[in-house]
């Protein structure tokens, strides 16, 4: 079956219809390009054809390239993969350029056949790059559609001429948000931005496209960049205005990406170098930089984790094979920050919510959180008054446990105290159906222990949200020893309903995410104690792609909470407790009352509104700056490996059962260096042998916490990669 079909009507207008069989959204494959190319040739060769409409047989035009194809291009490139990728990209350019030049005589620029793109809905990635090569882009007035080039979000950039064409169409400055930030728009805004030419009522789309084809003149077929008098809007790099644009562009790309995303830099080079040469040369340059990005392991790792595996997990890659467990009515116990956030995301997803707290006032305050978020949405124009009323209408704020009757899922989000949790568990279970699943949002207490308070431990599970709930995309599902398959399926189906990404882990201290974050924060504090410049610690973290330095992170999560966890951990571990050096700093800070942003005092100084001013100068008196400061790379290795080794240990211990969850969870859960694709992808990138070598060095300088786990040593000895060794599941890319 073909992805494209071709027909010619009585007026000589050919229609190429994109309709990939068996998919709800068109995506482009290599076979698709071959088919498209054949149809373009046929249309150009057929004297009866006056012009061509390229459209879609689906409600949308296309979502983009099949990212599986992109991820594999390098591996399938044979002995000289860079050349193979480059030539593959150039062959795409040739097809699109053939459409653009339309068979016209290049000297006189006459005699071509018009190509118009008729977009019924969303057109992203190649789904916009193909239209950009056409002579007219007409879109249906469909406010739900997204038009744009979001490639940068998964670590690549528009490499089928989209970069070169959009910059020439809009100028570098105006094209920047669409290329560098991947900003997408609904059709009317896309037209206002100059990306597409025309928006018409949906039922007029094909008629208008045909009208344009039949009326098109020779001059309508000549792109501005193929005209002799073409000048780039905003100026080329050595035009005075263009110079300032490009001067600033390098700064912003470099600083905003902390230097760790190869695609952003390559994209900017393609724009800059392309702006200095004729169009066809610019396409070739774009292909060279695009190839360069695909050859960088970061792009493949980002596509794998941020797109392919994230989607696989969302679709239930690790869901037990039991019947649908979609949630109809959710009971949330505790209307504090977490409970209120859970109520909001659930009600927004259409789930009926009972939000319970000890007092009506507290319950109402929890519901008011949803009203606040909806109001903010209305200000942005993302939420209508009806939608707000609908969502709030789904939330019942009460103190009455009887209201939980009929709930098929309970989410307990009360104070982190086993006794309190046990009490609310019993009260809820007294009311809810026997079949209901009971989930706790604990972040620190073992699920197995809490399940002891439950009448039905097989239906007891951990569903751990991250704060703020409405913004954090990861949900960590924790299986206790007794947790049954139906509880796991319920949790996964619920997470899918609220459109977040789940990972499923086994029950162990701090589960997965906190297990990895705590050593990161501790390593930062340790270095403060050693006299490492605090700015170096924080900047080193950012320069390796962490969203927050460890000191800023602990200020946000609060040092008193950290001290509480440290005391509990120490009590549980006894002599094996490895972090006394950290506690010296942590407890001292807490003693000074510097417990973080909430106290307007932590490792950073804050003004009275809570705005961060800078690192607290008092640190230098208590922990004098070491005369010899470590190299940046040493600090970065310490901060990265503190997390990464914990991820490996979690895998070794069976807390993690799927490295895809380890990678996706790390990026979405605590922002672990997204450019790397996650801790396991990063280890694969540098190789287990190199990782062990780094560990050995760090162990000798800083202690046994950096000892390479046996699994890593084993892989170093056998030359294995994590994705080579553990990607046995067919869905793992």
């Amino acid at each position: 079956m073909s992805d494209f079909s071709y027909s010619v009507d009585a007026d000589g207008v050919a229609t190429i219809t994109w309709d990939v069989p068996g998919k709800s959204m068109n995506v482009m494959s290599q076979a698709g390009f071959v088919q498209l190319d054949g149809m373009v040739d046929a249309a150009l060769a057929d004297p009866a054809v006056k012009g061509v409409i390229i459209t879609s047989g689906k409600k949308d035009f296309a979502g983009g390239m099949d990212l599986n194809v992109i991820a594999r291009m390098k591996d399938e490139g044979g002995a000289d993969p860079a050349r193979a990728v480059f030539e593959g990209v150039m062959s795409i350019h040739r097809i699109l350029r053939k459409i653009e030049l339309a068979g016209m005589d290049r000297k006189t620029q006459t005699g071509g056949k018009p190509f118009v793109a008729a977009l019924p809905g969303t057109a992203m990635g190649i789904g916009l790059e193909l239209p950009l090569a056409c002579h007219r882009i007409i879109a249906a007035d469909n406010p739900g559609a997204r038009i744009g080039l979001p490639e940068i979000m998964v670590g690549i950039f528009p490499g089928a001429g989209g970069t070169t064409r959009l910059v020439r169409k809009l100028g570098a400055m105006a094209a920047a948000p669409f290329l560098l930030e991947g900003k997408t728009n609904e059709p009317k805004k896309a037209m206002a931005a100059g990306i597409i030419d025309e928006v018409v009522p949906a039922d007029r789309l094909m008629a208008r496209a045909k009208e344009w084809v039949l009326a098109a003149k020779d001059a309508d077929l000549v792109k501005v960049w193929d005209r002799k008098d073409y000048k780039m809007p905003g100026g080329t790099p050595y035009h005075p205005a263009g110079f300032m644009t490009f001067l600033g562009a390098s700064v912003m790309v470099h600083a905003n990406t902390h230097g760790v995303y190869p695609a952003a830099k390559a994209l900017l080079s393609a724009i800059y170098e392309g702006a200095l040469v004729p169009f066809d040369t610019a396409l070739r340059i774009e292909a060279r930089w695009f190839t360069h990005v695909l050859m960088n392991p970061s792009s493949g790792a980002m596509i794998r984790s941020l797109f392919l595996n994230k989607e696989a997990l969302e679709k239930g890659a690790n869901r037990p094979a039991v019947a649908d467990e979609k949630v109809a009515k959710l009971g949330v116990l505790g209307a504090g920050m977490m409970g209120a956030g859970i109520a909001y995301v659930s009600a927004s997803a259409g789930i009926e919510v009972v939000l319970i707290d000890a007092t009506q006032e507290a319950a109402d305050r929890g519901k008011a959180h949803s009203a606040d978020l909806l109001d903010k949405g209305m200000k942005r124009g993302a939420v209508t008054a009806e939608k707000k009323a609908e969502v709030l209408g789904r939330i019942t704020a009460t103190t009455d446990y009887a209201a939980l009757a009929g709930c098929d899922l309970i989410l307990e989000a009360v104070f982190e105290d086993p006794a309190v949790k046990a009490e609310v568990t019993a009260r809820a279970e007294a009311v809810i159906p026997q079949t209901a699943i009971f989930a706790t949002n604990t972040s620190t207490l073992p699920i197995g222990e809490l399940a002891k308070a439950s009448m039905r431990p097989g239906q007891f599970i951990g569903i751990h949200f991250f704060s703020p709930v409405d913004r954090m995309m990861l949900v960590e599902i924790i299986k206790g020893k007794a947790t049954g398959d139906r509880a796991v399926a319920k949790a996964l189906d619920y997470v899918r309903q609220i459109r977040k990404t789940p990972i499923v882990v086994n029950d162990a201290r701090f589960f997965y995410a906190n297990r990895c974050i705590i050593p990161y924060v501790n390593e930062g504090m340790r270095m403060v104690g050693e006299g490492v410049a605090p700015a170096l610690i924080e900047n080193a973290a950012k320069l390796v792609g962490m969203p927050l330095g460890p000191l800023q992170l602990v200020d946000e999560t609060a040092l008193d909470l950290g001290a509480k966890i440290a005391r509990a951990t120490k009590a549980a571990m006894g002599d094996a407790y490895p972090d006394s050096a950290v506690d010296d700093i942590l407890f001292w800070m807490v003693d000074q009352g510097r417990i973080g942003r909430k106290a307007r005092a932590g490792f950073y100084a804050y003004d009275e509104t809570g705005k961060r001013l800078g690192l607290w100068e008092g640190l230098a008196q208590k922990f004098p700056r070491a005369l010899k400061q470590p190299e940046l790379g040493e600090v970065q290795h310490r901060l990265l490996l503190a997390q990464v080794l914990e991820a490996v240990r979690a895998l070794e211990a069976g807390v993690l059962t799927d490295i895809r969850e380890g990678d996706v969870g790390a990026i979405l859960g605590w922002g672990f260096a997204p450019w790397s694709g996650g801790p396991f992808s990063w280890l694969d990138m540098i190789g287990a042998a190199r990782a062990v070598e780094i560990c050995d060095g760090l162990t000798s300088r800083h202690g046994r916490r950096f000892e390479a786990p046996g699994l890593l040593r084993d892989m170093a000895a056998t030359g294995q990669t994590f994705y080579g060794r553990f990607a046995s599941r067919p869905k793992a890319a």
Partner: protein
Amino acid sequence: MTEAYLYDACRTPRGKGKADGALHEVSAPRLSATVLNALKHRNDLDTRAIEDVIWGNVTQVAEQGACLARTAVLASEFDESVPGLSINRFCASGLEAVNLAANQVKGGAGMAYVAGGVECMSRVPMGSDGGAIAVDPSIAIAKYFVPQGISADIIATEFGFTRDQADALAVESQKRAAEAWADGRFARSIVPVRDVNGIEILGHDEYMRPGTDMQSLGSLKPSFKDMGEVMPGFDRIAIMKYPHLERIEHIHHAGNSSGIVDGAAAVLVGNRAFGEKYGLRPRARIRATAKIGTDPTIMLTGPVPVTEKILRDSGMTIGDIDLFEVNEAFAAVVLRFMQAFDVDPARVNVNGGAIAMGHPLGATGAIILGTLLDELERRGLGTGLATLCIGSGMGAATIIERV
């Protein structure tokens, strides 16, 4: 080996580098010709003896383009048999021209050269020649490009210089320049600029602000704070390169940075035989020359390593140098030099510098070398060192010794 000597040095006064500056009406070839002709007349030169004119100039476009050196020769009274070579080592171009000439002489390629340079900053704006390093992402990003003002502020932050220290240096530069002018110490070098009729256009350094004090400087806003902290935010790049810094202290402003001016300078360099043949007396020997590449982001620290290099190469120590000329591109550059070598400020830039009198990019190296020579003679001292920081992270230095 043949030795190279300085026979003469002269310069134009420096005009304010703005449309209302006195030299704004004077073209780069004419300003160049002013000092070339002065050398010819002062020394009664048979210009056919000159092997080449090596001419420093930074912004080589428009009237400064198309090998300005040769155009300058043709605009002057030099014989047309004298060729011209335009060179660009940014702020040290004028010194590099002298160094190239000296080393050609030492190598036996000709008897005598004229070296120097010109910059008409009011007519050909700085930066108007483009430059990939600032805008080509494959270089600008990889090498953490920031403009020079940011680099100067990084030096201040890294080495702990305060705004007060920088302002005090600026006040001293103004004071020393004013005293030097009042005392006639530039008289030997200055060649007034005249129009086609011989009417004087400018006879003194126009940029100076005698009477500048801490209070008047205190009211000036930092020049590079906005581009550093706001748009486009160069400080973020600086901190990525130097992650132990939490923020960049913006201490430089128009009053403690070098002035934008128009000016030209020329130096006559030759071997001993040249002087003997034409009856000229050498004033100093060019003892050593050096250039070096350094970290391009902090960029302006070159005077320190290039001085270390020139001392090492010539078997000297810092104590062997009687007077220093360290170009006052920015106050922190000079403060850093004095800090690194622990030299007495009373021996550095004794007649003021570019903060007071201005920095015509292509000419400055030759100007400060001439100032150094005049002052060594006036004080009866032996050895002097001139050095400049250079864009994109370089440094250049010359040691001269009176004979």
